[in-house]
């Protein structure tokens, strides 16, 4: 199958075009650095199929960061797993053609056939930029097609041109290099050991001489000394020719581009101030900029909290109905009935109920990403991050981590400095991901809102989203100051023009994230729920029921002053007493269950944080995935007979929980300090197997392990501090 690679500067619409051509749904967003991995899809053209490769954006083949490395590796085809593409489909932004084509000229040296798509044709028209396509074709020597990927305009023509180019193999006319460059390449080659001399193509030598790229040498076992000798030989020669090796390529190529391309572009400069700048006059304003940022975040979380209410009630009612219905079908098989109603429907339903919040959160995240605000936020925050050795570059992955830490960890590939990148990776799981949202909403809805009202509830949710960052930053500061000492980084970021997000894109993203959430609830949470139900249901020995009944009868007998046998008879006839007995038996069963025993054993560890054994069980169960605490609490209370007819709602059940024994007997378990400790614990704890796996994959298992141990210990200490301090107030 032929391979076609999409290449271009960041944010020029490569992934948008990829989606057009393949029908897939790669993530797009209006900021540089959305794509950080190589992604493959298939395009059908005529009767043939081609493999389309979406690549990260890069300004140059002189790779600085891991995402740019991906591009260079894909084009050189030096990696064993990655073959060289048959055609490069170069995506240039029509509103910034000259700078965009710099990369195309660099790529020309690689000798891969090329087609140039001039994207953002619609934006160029709006900005009164006229491009002479025929002239451009002539100047470049390859087919040039104007397109608007976002509006799917020009795609049919592009496909035809690509199909033709796969046969005719057009090459971009290379820049003419001065004598000294050719001499430099020869000198570098001559300095190489005989065995690899033949393997080093001009393109490889270009990269080694101009940006001291050693990847080729490393791969072919050239010793570091020999590699340095070759690079130095080449650079010496450039120097002799009066060129500065550091930027010779850039200067020479830009000169060529200006000569050849500038005549094809006509810009009407009568229009001066851009729309984006007037929006920025507020959003990045000296004073209002930071307030606008905080205000936006506040609106997001307040809306997530308050808009979802009615929808949650609806889902809750649905859950109740399903439980009743399924329960009545299975009434003859008590164990199956319990598995279905107390286990599956309760456990999965308890998580499912938070679907509305997830949808609303992603509505806002998509707005942030698609409007172009993301890059502005990085601009605002850079200074704050620079105190910890990081830069605004770290801010984008961290903001993405509010959706999920996994894409956040991946997005750090745009960061050049390896230490800064690792720190950002370790910070990512401290950001409050959407899986924590249900935990906060449950706790806030059950305990904060009833006492303090909706406004405080929304504000609490807002505040919870900064706990992780605020707790982690001092550690980063200290680590940087005394251990890592990250050198000051260059922070250059291109700010995209603002655009109005397309309704379709926003809805699609919400739909996809909603689907993901439901799928997760239906598979992972479903499976864990069954295990948890089983661990809470078994072993179910008759003795437990018998001894509880005997104790209860004895208690009743002494209270009423009757004989034990009489009390037993009373239990049979009096409905209320029978009910009370049933609940005690249920509760005893849960306490005697496997998970109940584990919870009771571990509970002392969390006693200082005010957790009872049931919360402890929830915390333990939620290590694979945070949402599980909600299903677990649901199942515990449901199995334990805590749920009575009127209050099926988990929030009410929790509010009615009381300490059974000990010094606090009779007092409610969930007090404000306990609830705060639970929320802080979940804000800080590393309870996501998938994130640990991604951290390990992107760095090494040591960092994955470190992240787990550090965050979990920190969460435990913080929960204790919050509870103890909260109890003093």
């Amino acid at each position, binding site marked *: 199958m032929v391979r076609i690679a999409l290449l271009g500067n960041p944010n020029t619409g490569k992934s948008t075009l990829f989606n057009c051509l393949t029908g897939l749904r790669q993530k797009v967003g209006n900021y540089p650095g959305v794509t950080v991995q190589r992604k493959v899809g298939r395009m059908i053209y005529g009767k043939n199929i081609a493999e389309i490769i979406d690549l990260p954006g890069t*300004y*140059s083949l*002189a790779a*600085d960061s891991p995402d740019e490395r991906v591009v260079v590796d894909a084009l050189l085809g030096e990696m064993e797993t990655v073959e060289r593409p048959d055609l490069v489909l170069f995506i240039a932004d029509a*509103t*910034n053609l*000259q*700078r965009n084509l*710099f990369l195309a000229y660099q790529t020309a040296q690689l000798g891969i056939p090329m087609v140039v798509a001039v994207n953002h044709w619609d934006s160029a028209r709006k*900005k009164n930029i006229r491009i002479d396509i025929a002239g451009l074709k002539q100047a470049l020597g390859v087919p040039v097609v104007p397109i608007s990927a976002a509006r799917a305009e020009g795609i049919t023509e592009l496909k035809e041109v690509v199909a033709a180019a796969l046969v005719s193999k057009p090459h971009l006319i290379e820049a003419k290099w001065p004598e000294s460059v050719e001499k430099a390449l020869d000198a570098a080659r001559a300095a190489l050991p005989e065995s690899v001399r033949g393997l080093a193509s001009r393109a490889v030598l270009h990269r080694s001489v101009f*940006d001291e790229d050693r990847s080729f040498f490393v791969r072919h076992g050239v010793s570091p000394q020999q590699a340095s000798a070759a690079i130095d030989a080449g650079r010496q020669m450039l120097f002799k020719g009066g060129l500065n090796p*550091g*930027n010779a390529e*850039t*200067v020479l190529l*830009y000169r060529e581009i200006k000569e050849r391309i500038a005549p094809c572009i006509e*810009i009407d400069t009568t229009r001066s101030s*851009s729309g*984006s*700048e007037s929006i*920025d006059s507020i959003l*990045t*304003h*000296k*004073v209002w*900029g*930071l307030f606008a940022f905080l205000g936006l975040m506040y609106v997001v979380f307040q809306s997530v909290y308050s808009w979802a209410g009615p929808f949650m009630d609806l889902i809750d009612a649905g859950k109740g109905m399903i439980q009743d219905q399924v329960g009545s079908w299975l009434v003859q098989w008590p164990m199956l009935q319990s598995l279905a109603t107390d286990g599956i429907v309760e456990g999965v339903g308890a998580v499912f109920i938070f679907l509305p919040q997830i949808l609303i959160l992603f509505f806002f995240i998509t707005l942030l990403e698609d409007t172009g605000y993301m*890059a502005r936020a*990085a*601009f*605002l925050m*850079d*200074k*704050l991050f*620079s105190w910890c050795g990081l*830069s*605004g570059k770290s801010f984008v992955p961290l903001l993405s981590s509010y959706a999920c830490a996994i894409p956040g960890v991946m997005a750090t590939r745009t960061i050049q400095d390896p230490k800064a990148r690792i720190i950002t990776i370790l910070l990512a799981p401290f950001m409050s991901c959407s899986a924590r949202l249900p935990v906060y909403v449950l706790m806030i809805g059950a305990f904060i809102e009833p006492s303090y009202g909706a406004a405080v509830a929304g504000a609490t949710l807002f505040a919870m989203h900064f706990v992780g960052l605020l707790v982690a930053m001092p550690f980063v500061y200290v680590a940087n100051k005394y251990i890592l000492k990250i050198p*000051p980084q*260059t*922070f*250059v*970021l*291109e*700010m995209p023009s603002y655009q109005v997000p397309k309704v379709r894109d926003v809805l699609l993203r919400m739909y996809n994230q909603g689907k993901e959430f439901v799928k997760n609830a239906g598979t992972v949470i479903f499976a864990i729920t069954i295990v948890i139900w089983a661990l809470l249901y078994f072993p179910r020995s008759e003795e437990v029921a018998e001894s509880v009944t005997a104790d209860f009868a004895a208690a009743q007998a002494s209270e009423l002053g009757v004989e034990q046998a009489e009390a037993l008879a009373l239990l049979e006839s009096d409905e209320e007493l029978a009910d009370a007995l049933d609940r005690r038996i249920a509760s005893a069963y849960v306490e005697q269950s496997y998970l109940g025993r584990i919870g009771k054993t571990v509970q002392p560890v969390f006693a200082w944080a005010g957790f009872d054994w049931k919360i402890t069980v929830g915390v333990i169960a939620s290590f694979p995935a945070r949402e599980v605490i909600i299903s677990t609490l649901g199942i515990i209370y449901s199995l334990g007979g805590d749920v009575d007819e009127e209050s099926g709602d988990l929030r009410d059940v929790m509010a009615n929980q009381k300490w059974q024994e000990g010094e606090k007997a009779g007092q409610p378990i969930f007090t404000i300090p306990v609830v705060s400790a639970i929320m802080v614990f979940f804000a800080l704890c590393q309870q996501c197997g998938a994130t640990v796996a991604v951290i390990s994959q992107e760095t090494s298992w040591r960092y994955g392990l470190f992240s787990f141990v550090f965050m979990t210990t920190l969460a435990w200490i913080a929960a204790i501090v919050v509870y103890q301090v909260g109890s003093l107030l």
Partner: protein
Amino acid sequence: MKTLNDLTQGQSARIACYMPKFSAARRLMELGLMPGTTVRFVKAAPLGDPIALEVDGRHLSLRREDAAKITVQAL
């Protein structure tokens, strides 16, 4: 010698040259900050750093520390 860092809001200037031994020079040039190009100082971030520049109709953000290594000619 005046540098990019010395410009005030709204001021334009032409890039003259880069200070020697400035490792990010190449990347900045690739982003369009070539000697001879006209740039406009758009604004500084609320906390004073970084700054936003306009080059060829694009907005770039750059730290003052780096901007101070690029000399300019006033227009």
